[in-house]
């Protein structure tokens, strides 16, 4: 794994707990009994599992490249090279995966939240890219995605001439 720079990475313990929680809730696993040494309730919280094991509250890392144009440009190349565009469309405008340039977010649009989505993956087919890219690569992508021009959020689409 690449060196993580300026990032408080999720600890090994967090990883292990998340993995344990996932294993115990696999497709065909029986409900764990307290005697079986179930993981702590906080880790088994449904949303954490669905998110593929998310960093605990309080461990919000910060983007070392926030607002850096050059890094955003590298991220645009990475967005294509890692085939992100195959699911999210060229310029992130959405395909089988959601639009990343509409200013709206399923799992939060703060840099750390976008980081978590890419690093750990999300339900319904978003792969976890943390292993392939490392934190530095993921931050590069985050910096690009956060640089996409967001149109004013107009919730209305009208076909009536005013």
């Amino acid at each position, binding site marked *: 794994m690449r060196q993580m720079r300026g990032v408080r990475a999720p600890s090994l313990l967090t990883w292990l707990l998340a993995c344990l929680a996932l294993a115990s809730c696999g*497709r*065909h696993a029986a409900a764990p009994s307290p005697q079986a040494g179930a993981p702590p309730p906080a880790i088994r919280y449904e949303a954490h599992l669905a998110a593929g094991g998310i960093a605990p509250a309080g461990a919000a890392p910060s983007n070392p490249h926030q607002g850096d144009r050059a890094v955003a440009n590298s991220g645009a190349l990475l967005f*294509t*090279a*890692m*085939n992100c*565009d*195959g*699911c999210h*469309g*060229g310029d992130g*405008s*959405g*395909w*089988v*995966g*959601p*639009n990343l340039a*509409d200013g*709206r*977010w*399923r799992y939060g649009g703060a840099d750390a939240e976008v980081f978590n989505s890419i690093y750990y993956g999300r*339900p*319904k*087919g*978003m*792969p976890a890219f943390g292993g*392939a890219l490392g934190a530095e690569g993921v931050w590069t992508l985050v910096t690009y995605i956060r640089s996409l021009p967001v149109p004013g*959020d107009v*919730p209305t*689409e009208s*076909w009536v001439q005013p």
Partner: protein
Amino acid sequence: MSRAVLIAMLGCLGAVAVGGDKRAAGAEVPGGEDGQWSMPSKDYAATRYSGLTGITPQNAGSLHPVWTFSTGVLGGHEGQPLVVGDTMYVVTPWPNVLYAFDLTREGYPLRWKYRPDVSANAIGISCCDAVNRGAFYADGKIIYNLLDGHTVAVEANSGRELWNTQIADLGNGETTTMAPLVVKDRVIVGASGGEFGIYGWVKGLDLKSGRTVWTARNIGPDKDMLARAGTFKPPYDSGVDLGARSWANDSWQTGGAPVWGSISYDPQLDLIYYGTGNASPYNPEQRLGDNKWSASVLARRPQDGTLVWAYQFTPHDNWDYDAAGAMILADLTVAGKRTRALVHFDKNGFAYTLDRATGRLLIAAAFAPVTWAKSVDLVSGRPVLDPAKQTGASRGNVKGICPSLEGGVSPSSPAAYSPRTHLFYTSTNNLCMDYAATRSSRLKGTPFMGVTSPYFAGPGGNLGTFMAWDAATGRKIWENKEPYPNWSGALVTAGDVAFYGTLDGWFKSVDARTGRVLSKFKVGSGIVGNPITYRGPDGRQYVAVYAGFGGDWAMLSGDVRSDDPADVRPPADFLKDIARHTSLGGMIWIFGL
């Protein structure tokens, strides 16, 4: 004896015959109509023709909805229901629920429903919406594919799962959207993944146990393709390992050639026929050569998978022209000669008539605007290319290619054939594109594409049609222009009525001889499914179709979506107002007189 009683008795006879394999050729036998719809394409020949005569051009004007049911699922409702005996079976898009409706009781209550344990990760590995193209009934079982790479057999009477076999690997980019075919004790299945660089295949499973008996690759070396010396006789090629040597740098290993439509079967020749999808990736410069047998039709023995012949519609596919669409078997008189023909409407805009015993090309004629090729040479079997329309990362943005990569017709929109009118009926798309290929890198389980391809309307400005085609001469007989790309399958009956749906949600019946619209009704969502017809327990003829906008259109015109407040998309520039007329849905509609 009244006519109604007679029809009811014939219906019972038909029902008794269910369970044997002999009724397979029913549609080709006059009077052999059993009033059911037990296979995805109605019969082994994939004609989507029913011998029912209750609905006619004279009375079709009074067709009206008699029942609807929400599947509870959003997503493109491609495929079609089955009707076996007095039960209708419906498979939904992911999460692939199977419903069994009791057609004998008021309101058609469920006999049972089956909810498989299917992975949500499959949604992201499925290139173009989490669709399912239907189930097959055989031996008291409903057999279909789950999106996450499993085939299941469910007992038709009870809804009990009999077997569940993993056939595909999500982690390698494979999903399963196609409709299986059952021949004797083999279940033939294939995988999607032409956008993920899979190594495309079909498999033969054992009908009783679900065990995989054979696996045959669609590309690659002869041993992987089950191409055996002296048995495999492609009509225009010779030599060994054609499926490997026609790919530079062993690019066949990630060359795609998925199977995502349906499969047909000729019991006399004992051959199954299926089309393969595009070569991967979309940038053709990463896989120089013909790329056999992507964008092709393959003929195999169902029992052991042996390859008998193959014909490639689009050598070295430069345009994402999958040949995954239906291969329709019909006996036609071509140039005065009775011919065992195979007819195929390709994404590349040509309609092909082949000799289905040998794979030799008889007729190829454009049914939609075509600019990538001038014609298809009948001597060599190869397209006569326009060099200016060749694509690749080094060629930049190549403009004005017709059809678009949605196809002159989508493989999701199977045609129908009437042995009465001797005509084929199909939806079409009237779209062209620019194509800018870029270099793509393969990361297992992520898209392997490399193209930007904006669309625009073809000549005339209408984006689709529904048309009748004479495959014995390669001529269009009539066409109805539609404002939007037409994405439903076709149905035609012995009453000489054809049926189709439109992307903006109109369900139409038309005179099969003239195209005149006989009835139309606006259903709850755009139609991308295939209409079927059957004789109900009351002896009357009904027509059923799914409403449920989706497939590529759910992505291209993302403003039809209303389900996710965190995903808001602008309209497609070539399809600005579709969201004015429809949104996502998932409904079964039944029409009657």
